[in-house]
């Protein structure tokens, strides 16, 4: 069994990163591996926005990721500073359900818990 950490740094609309990360996470868990955390940084923090609004025929990967992490008890974190810079969250604007605000310090400390970090 391998303990993974996942780091997302690209925007989920402009790139395939969130879709790939989700596929990777599901496959890893199905094969008996464990995922300690999924951390959103740089443009990937946009997936933590509460007001994401998609037409019914487009997959809401951000919601799917949150649901997956909840099911499997995986810490789903985003960098609060990167999110505030982009207006994704603020004092008056909460993150989307299932996304937890964290600091880079927490991400840094979690590196000791894992065998491999995979970046998307």
């Amino acid at each position, binding site marked *: 069994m391998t303990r993974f950490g996942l780091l997302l740094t690209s925007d989920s609309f402009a790139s395939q990163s969130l879709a790939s990360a989700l596929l990777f996470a599901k496959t890893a868990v199905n094969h008996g591996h464990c995922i300690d955390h999924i951390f959103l940084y740089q443009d990937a923090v946009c997936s933590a926005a509460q007001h994401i609004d998609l037409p019914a025929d487009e997959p809401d990967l951000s919601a799917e990721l949150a649901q997956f992490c909840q099911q499997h008890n995986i810490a789903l974190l985003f960098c*609060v*500073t990167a999110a505030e810079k982009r207006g994704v969250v603020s004092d008056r604007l909460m993150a989307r359900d299932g996304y937890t605000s964290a*600091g880079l310090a927490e991400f840094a400390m979690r590196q000791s818990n894992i065998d491999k970090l995979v970046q998307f």
Partner: protein
Amino acid sequence: MAELIVNDTPLALDKHGYLANMQLWNKQVAEEFARLENIALTNAHWEVVHFVRQFYLEFNTSPAIRVLVKAMAQQLGPDKGNSKYLFMLFPQGPAKQATRIAGLPKPAKCL
């Protein structure tokens, strides 16, 4: 936008109540911020305020508490470069309060 009035001159503040333009800082501005923070500035406070301002000018960033402690320990010795001493001077958070009094932007909270 919020303002700080110093000598009848209004100075713009950012969203977090920090000085919007760090060039406009002077001693009176520091004293006014200290009043808002409920801090009576002593020589020990001024030493830290000047230290963080110098830090900013050199590194172009406001120091988070951990770095502030380390940098002060290197330059001023362990008596001053420890968080107990800094919290005694700035009870609400040394990095947060000292940078505000020094007219600098708020340090990043995630570091």
